[in-house]
């Protein structure tokens, strides 16, 4: 079968799922569950086959509707975008399997079909942004993503959810408008919207209209900085990610933010090009400064939190700093490690949010101080939590260690040993807020005094995804080459 059309088919299948889910399901039932999982598995297997084809046959450009790329929409199907799409669909399938039972606790029953419709639209947005090679198309998918990611927060009928969603929506729209202004300025300077065609025109445009390019870079950096929660612009993230229903938190923290990072990398390296970014402007240095501040400050904020989900959200701010530090180094090793950490942090943070959500599901405990002895009550959940938390700290054997190892090597290779100190400091701070949870979960006595080990007492559809994700964390930690082989092919497309 011709695999060229597959990118569009994935989007089409997901859109079909979004439209049909609320129509087919009046109530949430087994048939509806089968349909949702069917759509996800079909799109996952298509993207898996596409990844296999791209790895063996090489990457290609797909023109939607066979319009010429100068006026039509073009998809860039390369090693990293297909891997990213496969990763997005894999993680969201696992999270959706988890959510099937968990979501009943969080939102009204009649809203459940709508929730899955929103999840599918969210996936359309993410897959679209990852594939597209057209700036205006990126903006459109960005808006789809912005709306749905706010909607899956506000679907939980609680006071703080509405405010968190409103704050997120305002900042998100502000960011989208800035991005669109940047697109307009670049279009003014180059006359194209296709990233490849634009990149060819940029050197000429830089000579003729440097103000346009500079302004556009400023607007886009501000917009994407808000969306990707770079340190001083992260204020929406803790509210949004901690108040959302657990599956939404896992998706938002693990995947949605990463997609914007991918857009940032596309614009910085593929579109504007290293010539202007590094040689003329030195923009990468500033990205690295902000990332370093974020790595430390995010962790310091996380230490002060009492709510476990809020702590995880602040930890995301710190971890996004690692990714941006890799981008800020602007070397091939740096780009490689930030792509690696995109996947590795997606795995770890989803596992953390899902296991924290499982604890909330069973015991309704959100405060970190209430968690003593929870390891005896829910052994599997807390083992998953511990694996992911140890990965965050950087214990060998977990994927987080490999990202820190590669990042440290990249920093040394770029001859900036100051950042090595920052990485070590940030790892230490990670340990300060993750280790007490593990210690109190497994070493402190239970509140009711009993010392028996009990079963987790949560549905199997909730434990299985967590165990699978934990398995992936260890797999990537021990065999990082699985990922690195794909990333090594993707890095030259950026530099």
């Amino acid at each position: 079968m011709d695999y060229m059309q597959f990118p569009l088919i994935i989007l089409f299948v997901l859109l079909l799922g979004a439209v049909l889910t609320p129509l087919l399901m009046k109530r949430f039932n087994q048939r509806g569950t089968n349909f949702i999982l069917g759509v996800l598995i079909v799109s996952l297997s298509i993207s898996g086959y596409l990844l296999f084809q791209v790895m063996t046959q090489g990457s290609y450009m797909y023109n939607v509707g066979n319009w010429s790329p100068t006026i039509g929409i073009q998809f860039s199907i390369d090693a990293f975008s297909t891997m990213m799409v496969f990763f997005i669909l894999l993680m969201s399938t696992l999270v959706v399997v988890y959510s099937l039972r968990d979501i009943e606790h969080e939102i009204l029953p009649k809203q459940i079909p709508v929730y899955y419709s929103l999840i599918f639209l969210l996936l359309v947005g993410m897959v679209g942004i990852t594939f597209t090679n057209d700036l205006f198309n990126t903006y459109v998918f960005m808006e789809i993503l912005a709306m749905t990611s706010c909607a899956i927060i506000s679907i939980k009928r609680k006071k703080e959810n509405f405010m968190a969603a409103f704050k997120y929506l305002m900042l998100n729209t502000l960011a989208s408008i800035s991005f669109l202004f940047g697109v307009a300025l670049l279009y003014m300077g180059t006359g194209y919207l296709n990233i490849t065609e634009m990149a060819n025109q940029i050197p000429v445009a830089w000579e003729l209209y440097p103000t346009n390019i500079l302004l556009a870079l400023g607007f886009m950096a501000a917009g994407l900085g808000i969306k990707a929660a770079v340190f001083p612009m992260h204020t929406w993230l803790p509210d949004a990610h901690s108040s959302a229903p657990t599956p939404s938190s896992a998706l938002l923290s693990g995947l949605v933010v990463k997609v914007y990072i991918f857009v940032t990398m596309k614009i910085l390296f593929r579109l504007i090009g290293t010539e202007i970014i590094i040689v003329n402007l030195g923009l990468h240095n500033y990205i690295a400064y902000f990332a370093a501040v974020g790595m430390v400050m995010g962790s310091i904020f996380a230490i002060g939190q009492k709510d476990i989900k809020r702590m995880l959200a602040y930890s995301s701010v710190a971890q996004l700093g690692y990714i941006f530090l890799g981008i800020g180094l602007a070397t091939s090793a740096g780009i490689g490690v930030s792509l690696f950490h995109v996947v590795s942090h997606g795995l770890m943070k989803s596992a953390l949010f899902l296991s924290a959500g499982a604890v909330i599901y069973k015991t309704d405990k959100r405060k970190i101080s209430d968690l003593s002895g929870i390891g005896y009550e829910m052994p599997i959940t807390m083992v998953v939590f511990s694996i992911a938390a140890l990965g965050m700290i950087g214990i060998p054997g977990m994927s987080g260690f490999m990202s820190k190892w590669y990042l440290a090597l990249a920093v040394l290779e770029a001859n900036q040993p100051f950042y090595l100190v920052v990485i070590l400091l940030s790892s230490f701070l990670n340990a300060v807020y993750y280790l007490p949870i593990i210690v109190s979960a497994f070493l402190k006595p239970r509140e009711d005094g009993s010392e028996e080990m009990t079963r987790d007492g949560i549905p199997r559809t909730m434990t299985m995804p967590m165990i699978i994700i934990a398995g992936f964390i260890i797999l990537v930690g021990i065999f990082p080459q699985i990922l690195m082989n794909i990333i090594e092919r993707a890095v030259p497309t950026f530099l």
Partner: protein
Amino acid sequence: MEFLEIIMDRINYFGAATLFVIGLYTVLTHPNLLKKVIGLNIMETAVFLFMVSIGYVSGGNAPILSSVKEPITEAYVNPLPTAMILTGIVVAVSITAYALSLIIKIYEVYGTVELDEILEMRGD
């Protein structure tokens, strides 16, 4: 005089920039949630105005085949930005609708749409 001419040649761009700043100021400083949404709409309008102005060719025809019986000039207005702005407007409308519905919900639970009062109620 020359300065005025420069401004008059680029009046659309200056207008767009001014609108953008007015909108941004409203979004950032106004405590009323509804006015924040209005501010966002002004910002969106600014970007749309800017984008349509890029494609404008002075004295050009509308880019529709055989719209004018005898076209006076060969030049046509660039249709691409206009088409894109149509999409942009749709997006802006849906964002506004969603934001307004959120504000209704916020009013239901907090009893006010003033941000400072809401923050006082939440105690942070």
